[in-house]
């Protein structure tokens, strides 16, 4: 037969999917309620019905390169209406985890660091790196400095730069490689989505959509998640701006934390201590407000996960790890600040150390963690817009 198709199910993949929160996927009997209920599913080749059977058949390669799993915003309207309790929302969520691991570069590292049980190793690595760096720079592995709490006395800024700048570079390279591959596979995927339009216009439309959360807002069953996600996103964006602002303060203005107002460089630039104080106030407000927004958002995320929504939805350890890390980075950061202001040296420095470890975890493992969704999803939505697969 000429039109015969041979499927090679990947049984290991089916098992790993079930482990990642898709235990229920085999219950699906292909009624396609989900594809109709989903407010984000296009008319042509809708999801998630087809993903359910592809998952049952173990078609790993097709699924890892499927843009549709990223168009899903996990609102779980499908799971609520599913007549079989097959949880398409959870299955797609598990598929995204596997897609991140499959597309990650280097792939092996993705598998190791993506596993929540490896979290202790993943946290130990930065701790060791930091201690070795401190030993080289200050002569001590872990020494709490005397006098007023100034974090750069404990962990010099130069160390932050020498560790985090290369890490950020590696993360960027990793994403360039894996997204390059992902983009290529989108163009030859079995649904023949021929891209049209320019990447730039697609990307701009996508970013507008992300900022407004307009897709996410179509969710019904899980509406509460929209605000939680919004706050966490804006919190992170605010902190990203603050960080870059701090870099500018240091290298552009030559003004170093904790930004004393009598600093001659600062006074020279701003003209007076009062003007410098105003500038510092706005800067600090940005940082603190962002931290507060992130804290509220991450607490809401926890609350939504444990809340009974009248239908079962699985939060995998992959989800929990990210939620915990976001919460941890927020709490350690805020506590570091509070303890520093209280001048509680014996607590402030270890807290700052813990904060650095969590920051390292979030940044360095970005391509392998759930947070990588921001890159994959942005890519997939951009592609969907170009392929006219977007539901407005």
């Amino acid at each position, binding site marked *: 037969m000429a039109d015969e198709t041979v499927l090679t199910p990947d049984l290991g993949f089916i098992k790993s999917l079930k482990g990642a929160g898709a235990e229920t996927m085999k219950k699906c009997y292909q009624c396609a309620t989900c594809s109709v209920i989903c407010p984000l599913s296009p008319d042509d080749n809708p999801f998630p019905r087809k993903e359910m059977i592809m998952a049952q058949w173990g078609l790993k390669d097709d699924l890892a390169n499927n843009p549709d799993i990223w168009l899903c915003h996990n609102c779980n309207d499908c799971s609520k209406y599913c*007549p079989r309790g097959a949880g398409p929302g959870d299955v797609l969520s598990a598929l995204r985890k596997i897609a991140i691991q499959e597309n990650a570069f280097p792939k092996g590292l993705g598998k190791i660091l993506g596993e929540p049980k490896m979290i202790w190793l993943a946290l130990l690595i930065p701790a060791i790196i930091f201690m070795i760096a401190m030993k080289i720079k200050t002569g001590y592995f872990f020494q709490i400095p005397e006098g007023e709490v100034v974090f750069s006395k404990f962990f010099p800024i130069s160390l932050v730069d020498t560790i985090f700048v290369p890490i950020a570079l590696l993360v960027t390279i990793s994403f360039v490689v894996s997204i390059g591959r992902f983009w290529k596979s989108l163009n030859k995927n079995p649904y023949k989505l021929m891209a049209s339009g320019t990447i730039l216009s697609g990307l701009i439309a996508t970013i507008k959509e992300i900022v407004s959360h307009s897709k996410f807002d179509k969710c019904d069953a899980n509406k509460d998640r929209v605000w939680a996600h919004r706050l966490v996103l804006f919190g992170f964006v605010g902190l990203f701006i603050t960080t870059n602002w701090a870099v500018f303060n240091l290298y552009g203005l030559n003004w170093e934390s904790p930004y004393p107002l009598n600093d001659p460089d600062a006074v020279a630039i701003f003209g007076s201590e009062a003007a410098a104080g105003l500038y510092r106030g706005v800067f600090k407000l940005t940082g603190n407000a962002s931290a507060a927004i992130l804290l509220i958002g991450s607490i809401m995320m926890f609350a939504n996960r444990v809340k009974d929504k009248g239908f079962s939805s699985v939060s995998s350890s992959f989800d929990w790890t990210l939620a915990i890390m976001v919460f941890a980075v927020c709490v350690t950061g805020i506590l570091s600040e509070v303890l520093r202001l209280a001048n509680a040296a014996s607590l402030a420095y270890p807290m700052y150390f813990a904060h650095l470890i969590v920051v390292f975890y979030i940044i360095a493992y970005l391509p392998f963690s759930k947070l990588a969704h921001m890159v994959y999803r942005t890519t997939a939505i951009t592609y969907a817009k170009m392929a006219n697969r977007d539901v407005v």
Partner: protein
Amino acid sequence: MSDDNKAILVVGGGISGITTAVEAAEAGYNTIIVERNPYLGGRVAQLNRYFPKLCPPYCGLEMNFRRIKTNPKITVYTMSELESVSGSEGNFTARIRKNPRLVNEKCTACDKCVEVCPVERPNEFNFGLDKTKAIYMPHEMSFPMRYVIDKNVCTGSSCAKCVEACKYNAIDLDMKTDSVEVNVGSIVFATGWNPYNAENMDNLGFGKIQNVVTNMMMERLSAPNGPTKGKILRPSDNKEVKNIAFVQCAGSRDENHLIHCSAICCMASLKQATYIREKAPDSNVSIYYIDLRAPGKYETFLKKVDEDENVKMIKGKVAKIEEDSATGDPVLTVEDVEGGGKIHQTVDMVVLATGMEPSLKAGAAPGVKVEENGFISLNGQSGGVYSTGVAKSPGDVTTSLQDATGAALKSIQSVVRR
């Protein structure tokens, strides 16, 4: 066999209960039918035609009513409910509550009372598609052939126009609830089913969109004695229905609604497709299904309907129905699983193939163990207690009749072996 034998109590006077009672009585045993409605015949009486011969239900029911009328061994209590049961196999005491009909056996069905009655009520026999007066005949072949007054809407002795109009003194507005105690050897539950409440499926629009009806409403719309006299006219504007869609598994095989397959809805929709195809040669029918289930010999019927070019069968469950507010047309959305895209179809009327919800609720009926899902299993019942028909498991009329005959034998054994 002797007359010392205890009677057999049959709870439910639908086709299964009637069959059990008639079969046992014709074998020589006293039987008692307790029926909640004011008439016998149950759900079958509401059908337009039924399998396997697609004849109107009256041909089967009429025959059974004649067997009941001529057999002194059968006692019928309509408008009655089983109140309590005690005892054990071979010796049960059952208390039956008889709700007042307000019309006695002198009624000749002359219709004079209806002419004068000023109060109207939705006709539940036709699923509210039309109205009756507060005093009414449940349907034209009611058994017993006697009027009944809906106490909930009748204004009582302050009106009493019907009492004046009745020449036979057949109306007694002061009739009280009565009860009777019977001694029986076995009890057969033939309590049947109700159509699943389609309003529970909020995505299918029933109750909000007038032209979305259930399959049982479709039977009434097609029946010559129905609200439209057998013309299939849609509720919103009485337009003749030419373009119709059937939504299979509407509430069945669904964890959020009825977890079971209701067994008959596929055949019911195929049958109803023929109603509309016979009435309007230029009509179009779409049947949306998850799996089409045509057990046994019904396969032939499925093939016959499938050969009709104007009947399309599409794999995919309809999960959204909206209304075109200008025309009142329902617009349904479904993924065509075999075609790979969503379909948005505008039709004159949508029929939801709603399933069978067993009449009893778990733990709510005296003398019998009802399972969590509402069905009555033969397993785990105390001796002498049986179930038959849809009360036991969803099924069509043919299967129910065979099962009811078996239940008659079981109930006789319980009476005889003591």
